């Protein structure tokens, strides 16, 4: 994998010169599945489409093995909607399958009157009257829940043979639905874990509002149990995203309806190249520690040359002091000249090699220092991303001015907006490289990662600088810069962001 990365990087360097010859068309022809590490095949579906999809699966299972559609739903829900798996398990051991899915009670524990163990419906005073063998005096039977006698046709039972009157079942269902429980509604008998299938619920619950609630909640349960389906996390959005690549991957998903961007696997903000567990760890850590970090990394810094106080008011890390005209890097406060030409070092954290010999106190200090190093950069890019919006507004006003002064047409300036969009995309990825690096074990792989991270950082800063100062004549130069930055980004993702589950790097 890393070998690929190296050659790709060279490719991007060489490509720099014959950029105009190769052109964009060439890139378009390549299969995106192989070249784009962020490529993810998915579809945005409406509720009706998903209902149809699930119903098709129910029918499919229904034709393969002979069970009612509502039992098929229970089995599918239990087994991640994998028809083949259910069929093979069913052929192997149908009884076992039905017992583990809690459709049937465990066989050794059939609640026949004589063995009804422990305290299950066994109240001494009325158990004799509630048994299926009715009292000799009348045909009426006593329902153990409402303690009232009914005719036998008023009773209903599940596979477990626990019989209760229909009114009590209906009451039970409504109470459960009211608490948001649907697919997990169980039998009313003590210690019985048999689940109630959908058809019985819908037969007995008559209030339309409760029926609707049941169907709504059950649908949510079904979608959540289907590995390829995800609800869009956007507020009030009803779109359901379906992964069409047969795998659950932490890939970027954008809802067509509300434009919410999220990770398909965990539903949080997209976080490549970091994986789902690590980003959760990192975000929790930041939530715990951010106050200290905020305090330490204040919003202003002094110019390293003339010590005038400088506030960062744009996304770019290339600072240009208004006072003394000194160019420096916002992150490391080093001279910018060293950043442009050679190796961009300030994204790399240098660990103290003698740490093992230091005291616990010093180790804690070192741990905090390490965390702050990564946190500061993470936070810096997050702030820069927010400032990018201001930059975009500024670009708009600048373009307006230029167009008014007849320096090029509106169309001539469009490339600047593309550049700003790409800049935001790159900065987003770069932001999420810091939690990844923080949790990486030191070693050659981390060195490689930080090398690529530094490269990406350098190109992004170049791009940011150029976007803020571009003229119409700079089109070629800027497009070049855009291409280089994007290539750095994809190279890094290709090497470190898992494109399949199997090579997930943690």
């Amino acid at each position: 994998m890393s070998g690929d990365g190296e050659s790709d990087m060279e490719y991007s360097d060489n490509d720099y010169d014959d950029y105009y010859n190769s052109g964009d068309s060439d890139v378009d022809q390549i299969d995106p599945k192989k070249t784009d590490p962020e490529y993810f095949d998915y579809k945005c579906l409406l509720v009706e489409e998903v209902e149809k999809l699930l119903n098709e699966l129910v029918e499919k299972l229904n034709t393969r093995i002979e069970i009612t559609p509502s039992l098929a739903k229970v089995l599918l829900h239990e087994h991640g909607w994998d028809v083949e798996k259910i069929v093979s398990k069913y052929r192997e051991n149908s009884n076992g399958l039905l017992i583990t899915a809690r459709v049937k009670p465990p066989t050794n524990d059939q609640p026949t009157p004589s063995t009804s163990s422990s305290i299950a419906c066994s109240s001494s005073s009325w158990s004799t009257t509630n048994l299926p063998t009715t009292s000799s005096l009348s045909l009426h039977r006593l329902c153990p829940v409402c303690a009232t006698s009914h005719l036998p046709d008023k009773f209903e039972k599940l596979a477990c043979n626990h019989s209760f009157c229909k009114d009590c079942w209906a009451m039970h269902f409504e109470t459960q639905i009211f608490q948001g429980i649907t697919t997990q509604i169980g039998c009313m008998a003590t210690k019985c874990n048999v689940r109630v299938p959908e058809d019985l619920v819908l037969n007995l619950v008559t209030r339309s509002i409760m029926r609707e609630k049941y169907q709504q909640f059950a649908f949510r349960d079904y979608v959540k149990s289907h590995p390829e389906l995800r609800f869009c996390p956007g507020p009030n959005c009803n779109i359901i995203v379906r992964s069409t690549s047969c795998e659950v991957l932490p890939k970027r998903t954008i809802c067509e309806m509300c434009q919410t961007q999220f990770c398909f696997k965990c539903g949080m903000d997209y976080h490549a190249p970091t994986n789902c567990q690590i980003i959760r760890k990192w975000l929790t850590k930041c939530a715990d520690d951010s106050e200290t970090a905020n305090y330490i990394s204040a919003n202003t810094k002094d110019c390293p040359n003339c010590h005038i106080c400088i506030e960062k008011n744009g996304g770019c890390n290339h600072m240009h002091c208004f006072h003394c005209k000194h160019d420096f890097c916002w992150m490391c406060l080093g001279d910018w000249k060293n950043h442009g030409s050679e190796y961009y070092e300030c994204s790399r954290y240098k660990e103290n090699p003698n740490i093992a010999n230091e005291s616990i106190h010093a180790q804690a200090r070192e741990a905090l220092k390490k965390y702050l190093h990564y946190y500061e950069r993470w936070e810096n890019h997050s702030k820069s991303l927010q400032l990018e919006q201001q930059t975009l507004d500024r670009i708009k006003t600048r373009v307006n001015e230029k167009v008014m002064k007849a320096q090029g047409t509106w169309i001539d300036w469009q490339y600047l907006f593309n550049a700003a969009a790409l800049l935001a995309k790159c900065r987003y990825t770069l932001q999420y490289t810091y939690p990844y690096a923080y949790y990486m074990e030191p070693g050659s792989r981390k060195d490689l990662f930080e090398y690529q991270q530094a490269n990406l950082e350098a190109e992004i800063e170049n791009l940011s600088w150029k976007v803020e100062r571009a003229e119409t004549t700079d089109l070629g130069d800027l497009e070049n810069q855009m291409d280089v930055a994007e290539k750095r980004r994809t190279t890094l993702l290709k090497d470190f962001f898992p494109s399949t589950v199997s090579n997930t790097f943690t």
Partner: protein
Amino acid sequence: MANIAISRIKREFKEVIKSEEIVQCSIKVELINDNWTELRGEIAGPPDTPYEGGKFILEIKVPETYPFNPPKVRFITRIWHPNISSVTGAICLDILKDNWAAAMTLRTVLLSLQALLAAAEPDDPQDAVVATQYKENHPMFMLTARHWTNSYAGGPNKVADFDTKIQRLKDMGIDENQARACLSKENWDLEKATESLFS
């Protein structure tokens, strides 16, 4: 109150009164008011446990959706047990929460609570302080539970040493219940208890 709830409670009431356990004096249910929404239960401490010989009073509130939702039960008698709050009497028992089944009755609840007194589940605690003592200093837990049974539930077994220590704190002007709770928490270390009470 819904009809089902009332007819159920009436019937269950009779059930408990007729049951064999009442003959053995191990469980009891009494009415508190006329509308059947509040009852008072009583269970005897099971034999061979530190609760032996004690009578524990329970508050039972019957919700309107009974028996589709569980009754709300809490200990009125103070008790030292990992699954019961030593402060409020709140109970952590699965059948009073998610594992309730509509076919269960007051009798099954009372019997289950009795079973809980006989077999605590310290890994699913309601009272973390008690649970820690149960796991880390079991003899101390047994003595404390016995002492609480003696003090609050009329149990016959006195723990003389504990009574002396409580008296010492009472002499300093501390309320008896507060003194007992604090000493129990501090594993009956008088010095530590005094420190935490006066700090």
